[in-house]
């Protein structure tokens, strides 16, 4: 297999990006009519759909908490989302991502407001190209806001890593596979509190600090895009009432 040159002679990355440059990111809020909240994210080649239901009755019942609500998450990759067809159903990686995502959102969602109930997040990856868990969390945060779930802030997530001995942000597929470290991070943008931090690879303490800084800065930029997506969808336009009763994505 041919080794792609991850850092080029001119210092740029294989796809021409600078070390702190993100892949193109597009977010759209409220795309599924039947879900309480939803969002669609295109991040580089990643295409991720997030749907939120709730707060609603907790299933399975034994998972319910009497004094507060819970967050449950199911992260799933479609069979066609990867190069080699992936057999449908959860695998160990999906179960892990589901778990860390739910735990991250439990820190952000104000669960005391809905005891015994559960907020269910569904993340479907339609096309994968590294960084899907970050794209999923980013989409889920927008979907949660769309659903009206009470939260502290819009959670933003991005991965940093070490590639060709250099610390970079937002790894692409080749960088993730052939790089030296991958560090997905999710934060609460307003306070900078870290709610998800995982590492795959090797980093010194200094490198870790640099990567964390890069990732947190990227998360703030991503947060701005999330806010823009919601504002675009819901901001009040002064002027005419939206034309006609049949317009808009909300019918049906």
């Amino acid at each position: 297999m041919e080794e792609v040159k991850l850092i080029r002679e001119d210092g740029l990355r294989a796809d021409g990006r600078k070390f702190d440059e993100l892949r193109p990111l597009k977010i759209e809020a409220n795309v599924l009519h039947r879900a309480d909240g939803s969002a669609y994210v295109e991040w580089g080649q990643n295409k991720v759909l997030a749907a939120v239901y709730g707060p609603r009755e907790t299933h399975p019942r034994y998972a319910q908490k009497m004094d507060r609500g819970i967050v449950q998450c199911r992260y799933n990759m479609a069979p066609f989302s990867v190069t080699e067809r992936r057999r449908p159903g959860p695998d160990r990686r999906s179960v892990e991502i589901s778990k860390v995502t739910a735990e991250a959102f439990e820190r952000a969602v104000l669960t005391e407001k809905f005891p015994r109930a559960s907020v269910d997040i569904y993340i479907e990856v339609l096309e994968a190209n590294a960084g899907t868990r970050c794209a999923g969390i980013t989409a889920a945060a927008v979907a949660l806001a769309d659903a009206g779930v009470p939260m502290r802030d819009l959670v933003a997530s991005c991965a940093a890593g070490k590639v060709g001995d250099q610390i970079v942000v937002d790894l692409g597929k080749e960088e993730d596979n052939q790089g030296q470290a991958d560090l997905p991070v999710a934060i609460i943008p307003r306070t900078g509190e870290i709610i998800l931090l995982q590492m795959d690879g090797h980093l010194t303490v200094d490198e870790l600090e640099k990567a964390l800084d890069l990732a947190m800065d990227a998360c703030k930029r991503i947060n701005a895009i999330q806010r823009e997506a919601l504002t675009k969808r819901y901001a009040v336009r002064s002027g005419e009432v939206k034309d006609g009763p049949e317009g808009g994505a909300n019918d049906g």
Partner: protein
Amino acid sequence: MANDRNRGRRRQDWFGGDGRSGNFAGPRDRDDGQGRRDGPGQYDRRDRQDRRYDCRDDGRDRPQGRDRPAVEQTREVVLPGDLLAHGKNIGGPGTYTENGVVYAAQLGVRTFQEGKVSVLPLGGKYMPIAGDEVIGKVLDVNPNFWLVDINAPYPAPLHIDESAWQVQIGETAKYLNRGDIVAVSIQSVDVVKRSKLTMKDGHGMRKLAGGMVMEVSPSKVPRIIGKGGSMISMIKDRTGCMILVGQNGRMWIDGEPDMILVAAEAIGMIDRNAQQSGLTDAVQRFLEERTGSRR
């Protein structure tokens, strides 16, 4: 995950009744016998004010048509985490306070009410409040109670002792079955947000047969009712439909089929444009267009 239930925020279901119900009234009958127009969610709040303050553990106040200005003005949409105000005790519903600063907790419109900064959510589920009159859909039938979906995070039981009829234990299916629509009121809400329903309080509590059920976001209900009921009366008068508006965002419309659709579209318009100015005029124009010389 098991049980992915479809909980669309807006559903337009057409339910044919079996003709059997408590006091079913035809489309032209608008007086429920007490000199008041229609049942649940009605705009006359005189009788409801003392019941608004039961069993609330989060200090939530309901923005009612009376307190909340139904004057049309554009208001600012805020996102979770947005800074709203500084102060220790001025956070209302839809916000949270950290270190003496009030932040928005939900996607919605910032408002000031009774000295508190709140956020009126654009979406969200209905959180039950004792005394509210709502429209429910029967989920399950048990020997001595029915389980009713009221568009809240939890379904609520309606016990036979609280129903409008004399029901023997085990004969519940004779009165209400799965899928039936009922106008009920919330009797009580406990500290873990479990609610109980009753048909003995309120006006026009009955099984609703025929007609159509529509769902909107619960926060839009005051706008749909309008100041003093002006908006909903306008729709009712022009379409000749009977409309019951539940506080849980569900409403029941009955009348002539084409007029039901006109009313539903008008309500949909309000739902989508609740914050816009000029909404009342736009709805009026729409109704005039579609009902023409009927009224």
